[in-house]
């Protein structure tokens, strides 16, 4: 497999603020590449640079063989882009929106109408839908935006938080479409802050404060960043500070309503005993599989400490 996106030492500064700090990675053809990070970590900025919407302040990046700084025109023909904020025209219908953007991609009228109809079918929308985009529910609107990004048959699509503010059912539908895209050979570069969605990606990059701090497959990330056994601890009166000092415990992180405790030589029995001994009540300890959220917390904690 050959790399379709190549990024080396990418930087972006806005005045004195450094949004992206020396990021390097490659994305292979047909891959679903997830970009994970908190708001303001530099995800959108990276995507915008890769789409030719912003010029990098340093480093190089090429997409489908086009350098983003010197050949943004070439980049635009090879990529589809779905921005974080819904940016189609709310007063136009699905078909009218696609008709326009097809025209913007230089598709002749008849060809783009055919293509738009087919794409709307692919994302589960109807070409005859009389609703304007503004009147559609969030999930439907996002699928329409995806169709718009795919009009010209791009080799890579960049999806910037495509499922933000969308209900779980609609998110699942959306990801089914993403997997289908990847199966048909389109490279998908997607940012999200839903950790469960990141599990669907072939590889995940983790961004903290503009830097790419980890990059691997979801299971590889878990192995590397959440070693040892992981226990979910629930109950009241949990004393985080005391637990950290416990023999065999390496990490204690708040997780949902309870805690995630990690350690190499721990067992559920020993841990629950110790928690009770330190004032925990109604304690329930279960061994659990690490999630990408554990990875994210471990990596973020390390990055902010360092």
């Amino acid at each position, binding site marked *: 497999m050959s790399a379709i996106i190549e990024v080396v030492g990418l930087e972006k500064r806005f005045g004195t603020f450094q949004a992206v700090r020396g990021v390097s990675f490659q994305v292979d053809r047909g891959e679903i590449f997830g970009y994970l990070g908190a708001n303001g970590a530099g995800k959108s900025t990276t995507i915008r640079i890769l789409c030719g*919407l912003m*010029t990098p302040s340093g480093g190089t990046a090429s997409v489908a063989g086009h350098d983003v700084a010197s050949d943004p025109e070439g980049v635009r023909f090879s*990529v589809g*882009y779905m921005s974080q904020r819904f*940016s189609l*025209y709310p*007063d*136009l219908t699905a078909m009218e929106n696609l008709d326009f953007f097809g*025209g913007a991609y230089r*598709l002749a009228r008849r060809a783009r109408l055919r293509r738009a109809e087919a794409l709307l079918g692919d994302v589960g929308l109807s070409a005859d839908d009389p609703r304007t985009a503004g009147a559609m529910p969030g999930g439907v609107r996002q699928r329409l935006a995806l169709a718009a990004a795919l009009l010209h048959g791009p080799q890579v699509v960049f999806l910037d938080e495509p499922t933000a503010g969308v209900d779980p059912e609609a998110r699942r539908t959306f990801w089914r479409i993403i997997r289908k895209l990847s199966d048909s050979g389109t490279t998908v570069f997607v940012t999200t802050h839903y950790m469960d969605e990141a599990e669907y990606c072939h590889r995940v990059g983790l961004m903290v404060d503009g830097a790419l701090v980890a990059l691997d497959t979801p299971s590889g990330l878990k192995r590397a960043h959440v070693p040892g056994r992981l226990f979910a601890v629930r109950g009241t009166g949990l004393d985080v500070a005391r637990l950290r000092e416990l023999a065999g415990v390496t990490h204690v992180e708040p997780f949902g309503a309870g805690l995630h405790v990690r350690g190499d030589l721990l067992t559920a029995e020993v841990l629950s005993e110790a928690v009770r001994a330190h004032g925990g009540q109604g304690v329930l300890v279960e061994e659990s599989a690490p999630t990408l959220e554990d990875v994210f917390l471990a990596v973020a904690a390390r990055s902010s400490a360092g």
Partner: protein
Amino acid sequence: MNPRRFVVRVFAMARKEWMHLGRDRATVLFALGMPVILLVLFGYAVSFDIDHIPTVLVDEDWTPESRSLASHFSSGATFELVATVGSAREVERLFREGHAKVGLVIPKGYGRELARGNGRVQLLVDASDNMTASSVLSYASRFNVWKNHELLRVHFGNRADLIEVRGRALYNPAIRSVVFLVPGLIAMIQSMMAVILTALTVAREWERGSMEQLFATPVGRLEIVLGKLLPYFGVAMAQLLLVLALATWVFGVPIRGSMVALLGISTLFLLATLSQGLFISVMARNQMVATQAAAVSSMLPSMLLSGFVLPIENMPRPLQIMTNIVPARHFVHALRAIMLRDADLSVLGRDAFALVVFALVMLVLATRRFPRRLA
């Protein structure tokens, strides 16, 4: 650049803008209603025809001669007798209170003096309103000449050697100021409307966020600019035709010259002002700033520097030169030439040239200043 592809994209852009307009009833209503309201409002309000001036009479003589003079003086539509008072002092009081602007004072002994060939009356004018005052004074002197002619004829019959200058007003026989003003009004209204129409379009895309999506496509800057220009040209032309129709039907302004020339120069003028609006829109990035910049940059010059009200010949030289970059100035000139005088088309050459240059400069600026990236 493939020219066919270029056209495809310009038309895709224009179609989209046209659809926005179709959905946006408020804008269409504003676009077609506003020029009509403005024309009617200004057309009736802005008039230099001064008549029905409130007048006070002071007749200290009270003879048949004085009464005859007074009734002659106020018989036309120019002066309207509102009061008869006892003294010139009271006339001043009425001036101060704003009840009258003119006082005719016929002194005691006027009838007797007139018989001796020495009739004198006094005309008091409130000159704080200089326009009314000069109009009154010029009417008074005409009245004077006319009255003297009459007297001379009475005394000497046709033997008198009299010079009579007879003026004939061409192109506007009744000397109605509305005939002169309406073409200027049309130019002013269309300047404002065209600039405001387009000023919002690019700014709106920035505010909606659709600009980002547009930038992600390979659509060119010139394609966006031209695609936005086309549909608004249609709207602006509809406005202009509406306003022209109104001008002829409601205000009786003639169109003596060629309709083709009128539409031709209108096309150039609309392209110039629409491009000005686009340039503002490209620079402004939000609709509020765009609206204000559009209003100021179109209204002030088209009102003050177009020759619509203030004659350009009377301006200081630097200002005169400046008026050349005001599209309304050329349009006002051309409209008056075509509509009122059926002028030879060669006098429009300068105007046409200036408008084309202005439109091109604005289009180039709008395109050049159009960013192709977010940052």
